[in-house]
């Protein structure tokens, strides 16, 4: 195509092709530059020599078409996602066939990671200073929740892993699932509103955030300040199972408990049914044993009392006997025989003991009893 005007008298007129070519050459003289924007409308096809994408200015929404040779794009090994911030190095170019302005890329670099990391570190320090992550804020999970609230993305794997594990461990569980947009622009607001809705459910007394792995950027909403604060302020305990083992989104730090995976979260929020049954059976056994012990102790007491009761008559008899023996001794001491033995004698007249000399007549017969044997005698004289 020649850039030569057609002359209509004085007027120079260019064909569309000639104009485009001219502008294209002009643009081609512009220096190579770096352009920053978000990736949208990324189209890569094995059959095409060129990869197309559109760069978007996130503040104004202005867009710029970018082309990059597929071989170059593949060599960069970026596997870019929509919405990612990139730096593109290239020159302005005009697609002559359509008169469209574009940028012919010679290099693409993912950016924002460094910036994100710095911002995250700042936020983390700020929230830590406020005590949002403080261990004393952590609440204990209910041992057996009435219902578990589960916040998931449209993430069938995380959700499935969680539910399967819950059911295997403790069948008698109620789960309230809230599928939530967990990625992209509206994610933080959606996560916060889901969290509130779950916590407001009358039976939910623990919330699990189950979000499978994703790129650093995918998980960024879970480090969003408002989300992190909402997790910390949630009226019921929160278990955070976001990303993989190595990821630590800030909501993990704000949650009451952190789980490496949705499966691990399930194991944390419901007891193991077998363990629970064993504990219950243990309780039942202890209950019986405690009652039996209580009654036995009572029985022993009873036995002691009744033993004393039964032993009582014997002891009484014994005491009586001892008393009796004593009495016998005393009795024996009082016996006239003992007196006789000391030299006294008993005088009887007609079988009656004589106590008064006036009671007998002279010549009357008397019987005198001695310690050994007796005498018969007559009264010679009496001196009353």
């Amino acid at each position: 195509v020649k850039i030569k005007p057609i002359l209509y008298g004085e007027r120079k007129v260019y064909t569309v092709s000639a104009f485009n070519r001219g502008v294209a050459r002009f643009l081609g003289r512009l220096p190579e530059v770096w352009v920053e924007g978000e990736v949208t409308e990324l189209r890569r096809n094995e059959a095409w020599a060129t990869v197309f994408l559109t760069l978007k200015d996130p503040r104004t929404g202005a867009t710029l078409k970018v082309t990059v040779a597929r071989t170059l794009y593949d060599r960069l090994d970026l596997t870019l996602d929509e919405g990612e911030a990139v730096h593109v190095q290239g020159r302005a170019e005009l697609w002559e066939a359509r008169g469209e302005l574009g940028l012919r890329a010679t290099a693409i670099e993912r950016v924002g990671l460094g910036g994100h990391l710095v911002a995250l570190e700042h936020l983390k320090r700020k929230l830590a200073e406020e005590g949002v992550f403080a261990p004393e804020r952590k609440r204990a999970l209910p041992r057996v929740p009435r219902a578990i609230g589960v916040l998931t993305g449209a993430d069938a794997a995380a959700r499935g892993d969680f539910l399967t594990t819950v059911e295997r461990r403790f069948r008698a569980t109620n789960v309230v699932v809230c599928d939530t947009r967990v990625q992209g622009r509206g994610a933080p607001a959606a996560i916060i509103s889901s969290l509130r809705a779950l916590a407001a459910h009358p039976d939910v007394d623990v919330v699990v955030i189950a979000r499978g792995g994703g790129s650093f950027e995918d998980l960024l909403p879970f480090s969003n300040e408002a989300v992190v604060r909402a997790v910390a302020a949630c009226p019921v305990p929160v278990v955070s199972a976001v990303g993989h083992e190595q990821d630590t989104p800030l909501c993990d730090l704000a949650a009451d408990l952190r789980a490496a995976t949705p499966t691990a979260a399930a194991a944390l929020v419901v007891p193991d049914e077998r363990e629970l049954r064993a504990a219950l059976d243990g309780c039942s056994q202890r209950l019986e044993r405690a009652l039996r012990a209580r009654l036995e102790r009572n029985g022993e007491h009873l036995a002691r009392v009744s033993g004393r009761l039964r032993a009582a008559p014997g002891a009484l008899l014994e005491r009586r006997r001892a008393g009796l023996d004593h009495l016998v001794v005393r009795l024996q001491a009082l016996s006239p025989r003992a007196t006789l033995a000391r030299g006294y004698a008993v005088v009887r007249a007609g079988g009656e003991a004589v106590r008064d000399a006036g009671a007998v007549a002279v010549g009357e017969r008397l019987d005198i009893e001695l310690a050994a044997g007796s005498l018969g005698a007559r009264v010679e004289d009496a001196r009353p």
Partner: protein
Amino acid sequence: VTLARAHRSFEDLQKELEDIVAKLERGDVPVDDAIALFQRGEALYRACVERLEAAELRVEQLTRDETGGPAA
């Protein structure tokens, strides 16, 4: 004996059972009370086991609105 299933959580029942066991094990309750406690404990135990046997996993879905969060 109130075991109203709708109102008390499994955890509540289990906790009461454990408390009763602990109390009975301390052994300082009068015999009559001990027997009443035992019966209550047995009822709690049966209620707990019943709940385990009868129940199955129940999943409720909160619906989403267009913002990606749950509908009000």
